[in-house]
């Protein structure tokens, strides 16, 4: 799965990570989402027919979530992306250069960084805004 190729086709992050605008979790695409485009071959990538093979077997893609929040932290993509108009790249890597699925977690935030931004943006500093 090459992020680069997908982005090169002018796809937005939200096309696959559909929860990013409306939900707390950005979420991963279902195989059905993939098949919206990949029903027919989309290029010469050797791995690409695998998607259709999965679909033929009725099997879901086993995405591995690498960016995991600490257990006591709540983070909402919807609140940051939709309500506060932040871009994905403000926390995540620039994926347009990544020619594969993410190999390791790319977000390494400290609470101090969260607080600094919340303070400068006059966002809530109530503990309960982010802790659970």
């Amino acid at each position, binding site marked *: 799965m090459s992020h680069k190729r997908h982005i090169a086709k002018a796809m937005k992050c939200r096309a696959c990570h559909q929860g990013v605008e409306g939900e707390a979790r950005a979420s*991963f695409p279902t195989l059905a989402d993939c098949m919206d485009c990949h029903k027919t071959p989309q290029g010469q990538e050797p791995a690409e027919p695998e998607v259709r093979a999965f679909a033929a077997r009725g099997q879901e893609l086993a995405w591995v979530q690498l960016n*995991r929040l600490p257990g006591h932290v709540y983070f909402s993509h919807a609140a940051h992306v939709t309500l506060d108009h932040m871009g994905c790249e403000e926390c995540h890597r620039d994926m347009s250069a990544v020619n594969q699925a993410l190999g390791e977690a790319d977000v*390494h935030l400290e609470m101090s960084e969260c607080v600094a931004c919340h303070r400068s943006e006059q966002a809530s500093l109530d503990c309960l805004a982010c802790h659970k």
Partner: protein
Amino acid sequence: MSRFGRRELLGGAALAGAAALGCRRSRDPYRIDKPPVPGGRGGRAGEERWVLSTCALCDAGCGIKVRVVEGRAVKIEGNPDHPVNLGGLCSRGQAALQALYHPDRVRSPLRRIGARGEGKWRPISWDEAIGELAGKLGKLRAAGHPERLVLIDGETGTFTHDLWARFLVAFGSPNHIGLESARAAGVELATLYTQGRYGLPACDLARGRLLLAMGTDLLESSGQAMRFLSWARLVRPHVVCVSPRRPGCRFDEWIPIAPGGYGALALSLAHVLVRDGLVDREFLRESVLGFSGWRDQAGVEQSGFETLIRAAYAPDQTQEGTGIAAATVERLAHALAKQRRVVVAASDGGATAASNGLATGLAIAALNALLGNLEGGGAAGAQVYAVPQWEAPTVDAIAAAGTAAPRIDGAGTAACPLGRSRVQAVPAAIAQSNPYPVEALFLHGTDPLTALPGRQEWVAALHQVPFLVRATSWLDESAWQADLVLPESLPLEALDVVTCAPPAGEWVVGLRQPVVTPLQDTRQMGDVIVALAAGLGGSVGRSLPWKSYSDAVATSLPAETLAEMREKGGRWNQPKTDVPGSIPYKFEICSQAIASRMAGTADAAHASQAWPCKGLPPWTPPRFSGDPLQFPLHLLPYRPVPFVENGIRFLPWLSELPLVSGDPWPVRAEINPADAARFGLADGDQVLVESPIGSCKAVAQLSDGVRVGVVAMALGRGAVVDLVVPDEDHWSGVLAWQGTRVRVSKVS
């Protein structure tokens, strides 16, 4: 804690530690947001959904919705659109998740390799298990003795239950033995004989304003409890609770009745209503048979209930039997008559669980009829069960001969002329090979060793049966004795169609949907039955021709009905129209069905001479086991708020509910302070409760919420059930849960 170290679980602690040591950017130790979970099959990262289903923790069939996060069920809530519970859910239904993820679940079929009860097993495959089962049962049929297979089936109201019935018809055994006699048969048979349909009475709660609750568990733990709770949301009913024990749930008035006195109270109330002309004359004239004089089917004039009730049961006469002052009965009767819109309801396990169970059930039903409660005002009609629309099974000559054999529990015979099922008679029948030897016993949905009294007899019986199969989710005590253990999927993993608790004027059918994929190598019972039938082949296989249980369900109801049920979690608001009544009247106080069933029995002569009304077994004072001098107290085994048949041991949240003060775990013997003083007991004392057949350690709890002369003990824990002498009502086979005397002594 074996598989998951504290780090994964307890991110918070790890964080504190990491911060203190100044470990920057070492986040891995505390990523516990979603623990890696074995049950996560079928779930996608970040996926969250709600699945509608039907609760299975009691017979009520509340609608539930289950939150599933990444394939794991994490929360159960009530379905707000469901007519039984309107979005609420009791503690039991919510605790079901603890059963689902319980560590002691059986993970695969097991074959016994040691001695019985030794607990040595070999895990086997399902194919092997079904093969063994089909082989053993096939031999029974080949030998021409299919009736020697006995099924004890603790489940009711599901299509799985109907599938079992169908299997047994095709196989050739009459022995489909349910637990009704140990549960609600006293009420359900009364509904059958007065209104022509077996089941709980359906209460028209929407218009009721007063509830006369007979037995505390009606409010606390019966299949009807949630119905009453939902009702209390819409109307604030006045609740009068009649029971030797004060309920733990809300009520407005508590009348501490003597054990076994419910029928006398109902008849006494009826007496006052008749005497003072407070009955619903029009309803009695139009729709009730047997209130005044009536002609039976032979055209003979018979005396009616009115004559009987006028002649006896005045409140001052029943005072001794009920322990209730005559003035209280007079006041209550007038309150019932004044309110009009009342519901008189008997609990499943309390009011009729005595040696006079059926007569008590009939007396309470008759009281509803006198008040005109059957149409509009209060209790109306009876529960209507959904029936799968399968074609008739194929029955060969062996099966026909087998099903024609008498049932081993004697229900419907001279031993129990008016009963439908009598599970407590099974151990003796096995021990005596009467009427024939039992070669194979299949236990499904109940563990008789923990759920039913008469433990020693049960243990001996289970040992005597050559082939014992236990379908269960846990290695419970009877599974421990089994030759073959079949791990059953839990309701949150399985598909089924369920008849829900009875609202009036409509029927509610719930759908149970698999919420998660089975966590272990378990199967739902329907699939086992279908596979077993296929393994047996022949006419049995042809009668159950489906590939799987979901296939069977798909053919059981019209496709659009099932589709609607999948979407809503069930189907309701269907007017109750075409249910054929077996009787021309809406209500028979004097039951023609009872009259005709009694005609051919050994008791026929007795009934025609000694019964004051034909078709109405007379109420008799309750019988108690145990010498009153040696055992001075009455035992009241009750079903507490979190009572789950066989289950509470597997649901620790329920065991820890804050319903008692202090440590919630020990077994308690609730006793009136007056009795405690008499026997030298103090609150918190360790005591031994002894009955003629058993004993149980407990902690004494002094409570003015228990009638003098009564010891109340919650069922579901400890050896409480072993105290109960399995006496029964002769007519109906109803188990006399409340018919045992005990003594309580301090353990030093």
